[in-house]
């Protein structure tokens, strides 16, 4: 495997060719904030939190999609980037009804943690406060659109790992909504295997176990570990599986 060297925030790090900048930085102990990215799922590039500056380019690039190159100069925490990340979180908080005090994920929520980490102490934009429904038709889980940030982790987990593709998106723009089945109540979707992976990968309180009250919903670290491992071993990557089988 070829090793390349790149400069991240004036420090030299080495990475395997073919890795993304995000993977390389995290492997070397650094961090780039992400929201839609989850190790083990395919990349999406929608949250724009992992944007980085590349030396010599005025454009910002998403770290989750940018491949490492020899001699690359990367800046992950410039003033401009920190400002934009805060704005992204502010926009997300203003989009739907993120009211932590009554949320099942209070204290375990990735959006909440990210807002705290980035120092978002107020939202300058008007809250849009849409009136959105909840879906409690499933026997085990609840879907609350008010907490959804449309990161599509549930969609990717269900499609790529479970292979059910229960989740999808309806509408567009600000009217986008995650839907189950053919826009039917979750409980009526007969392709759902009730595996609960979508609930485990959801960064906010949009998907939760039924019966959990405020701040009671906790993630199962074993499940997330398993999602990640499966990716690394190439369990749900068709090409990797094919090459692995060919080697046997």
């Amino acid at each position: 495997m070829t090793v390349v060297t790149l400069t991240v925030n004036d420090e030299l790090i080495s990475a395997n060719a073919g890795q993304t900048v995000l993977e390389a930085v995290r492997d070397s102990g650094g961090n780039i904030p992400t929201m839609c990215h989850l190790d083990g799922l395919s990349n999406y590039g929608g949250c724009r939190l992992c944007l980085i500056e590349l030396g010599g380019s005025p454009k910002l690039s998403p770290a989750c999609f940018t491949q490492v190159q020899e001699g690359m100069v990367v800046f992950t925490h410039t003033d401009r980037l920190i400002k934009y990340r805060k704005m992204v979180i502010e926009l997300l908080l203003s989009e739907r009804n993120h009211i932590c005090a009554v949320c099942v994920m209070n204290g375990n929520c990735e959006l909440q943690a990210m807002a705290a980490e980035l120092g978002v102490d107020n939202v300058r934009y008007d809250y849009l406060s849409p009136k959105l429904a909840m879906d409690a038709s499933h026997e085990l889980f609840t879907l609350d659109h008010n907490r959804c940030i449309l990161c599509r982790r549930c969609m990717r987990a269900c499609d790529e790992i479970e292979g059910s593709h229960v989740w999808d998106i309806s509408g567009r723009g600000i009217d986008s909504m995650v839907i189950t089945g053919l826009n039917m109540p979750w409980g009526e979707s007969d392709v759902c295997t009730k595996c609960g992976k979508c609930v485990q990968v959801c960064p906010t309180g949009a998907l939760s176990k039924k019966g959990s009250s405020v701040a009671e919903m906790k993630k199962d670290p074993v499940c997330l570990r398993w999602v990640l491992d499966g990716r690394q071993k190439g369990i749900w990557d068709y090409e990797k599986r094919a090459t692995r089988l060919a080697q046997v």
Partner: protein
Amino acid sequence: MNKRELEAAAQSELERQKKFCHRVLCCNSTSCMSAGAGEVLKTLQQSVEDNNLQKEIEVSPAGCMGLCSAGPMVTVQSSDSENTLYKEVSPKVAKEIIESHIVKETPIDDNIIPSDFPFFAKQMKLVLAHSGLINPARFEEYVALGGYNALAHVLRDMTPSEVCETIHKSGLRGRGGGGYPAGLKWNLVRRSQGSHKFVIANCDEGDPGAYMDRTLVESNPHQLLEGMAIAGYAVGADQGYIFVRGGYPGASKRLDQLETAIRSAERNNLLGGRILNSKFGFRIDLRVGAGAFVCGEETALMASVMGRRGQPVPRPPYPSDKGLWGYPTLINNVESLSSVSTIINHGAENYSKIGTTGSKGTKIFALAGQLKYTGLIEVPMGITLREIVYDIGGGMLDGRTFKAAQTGGPSGGCIPAEHLDIEIDYEKFREIGSSVGSGGLIVLDNQSCMPDLARFFMEFCMDESCGKCVPCRVGTRQTYDILDNITKGSATMDDLVKLEDLCIMMQETSLCGLGQAAPNPILSTLRYFRDEYEAHIKDHFCPATECKITKSPILDLVNGKG
């Protein structure tokens, strides 16, 4: 069909046309149809029959003749004199054209457009040269005017790399708005490795007020097919797709027309396997979009062609490396592909003589707004905006003064009066905060309210955002809300700061061109008309008359009526 048979087909069509002493062409493109061209065509045919002149006069539908504001348009071609162009033809005038102009040889002076009419004098019709002179449904008429000669020439005498080099030398740049050099793109696709390659014609034209691609497709579909086949030969593709916007008014009719054109080209061995008896085969299929503006973005377009949800993915990889189903794909706008045969026929050197240092050739604009004459124009690059507005457009309507020209639709910006002498050029437009875009050009007068214009375009972008990335999905909504407050007179100066901040953030962080360009109308109007924004906020007053603020409750409160 081989080259000799192609020439024979052209010859026999010319002879057929010579049999008629007059040909009456009635514009049948969308704008004239909406002005009643369908009825006019029927009347023309009826009165030819009534006078028993079927053998002397041919009445035929045709493509766009340009002056859309004075539609329906009719051209009378005579074997012994120049073409006569008629404007505002009603069924009554249509009858007179046959009975008085043709039979009695006394033209109808009220409706005639003089041959030195300024609207046409400053134009340079290369891509639109045949538009309005041929019946788009008949493949023979395109062949009679030299159609498919470029394809025959390319297949017989040129290698793919020579074709790419010719396009590169011509200086043709992507006409969809990006302005990326077409020759470079072709070469990239040609050099990429892949067992299949694809060519896509992007006909997902969605800018409000722009209809260049639609007109090209409905006026001269074979020109596009020829351009695509040449592109396919140059890059090594065997399959092409025309991605047509589903939301066009009368889309089904247009799709039928395109389908007919493709079928007749296939029947005549100009598409399909072994084109013109060469070893090159190329097929073209239609793909209809589900009506999303974002599908004009190339990665979203490809997703839609593949049957997926039309939303963009980050680049790289670029379509030239990994496009449709992972194969190298060439995506060009309809106007770029329609220019190809012209470039091959006229030579790259002659094409590159037209225009400025950076922008070559001609550009089609859909000229609209408060002008005397509006319609579809084709002008050489490097012509000034003043010439377009005052010479071609005939100046402002009576009692109105020029305030700004909005170019590039929701991704472009406004050009104020102080920049009227700017040349049409990709870089010069970018410098002043606008863009040539795909070719929408709306002229605004002193009654237009600029914050309201920005609000209109932001509303459009908000509706058309796919919702994938946060800055575009939520940012367009938040900026729209702020603009709405400004136009209602209920915003504060803090909102203006917030608005500018958000605009720059959206420009820099959005995933695709839609979100990155969505703030352009705001930023350019803020740059040139900041006082108007401030008047709305501070004085609750709008200097322009066409503004909502005059009806706003806040103004009533200010005036003591509340």
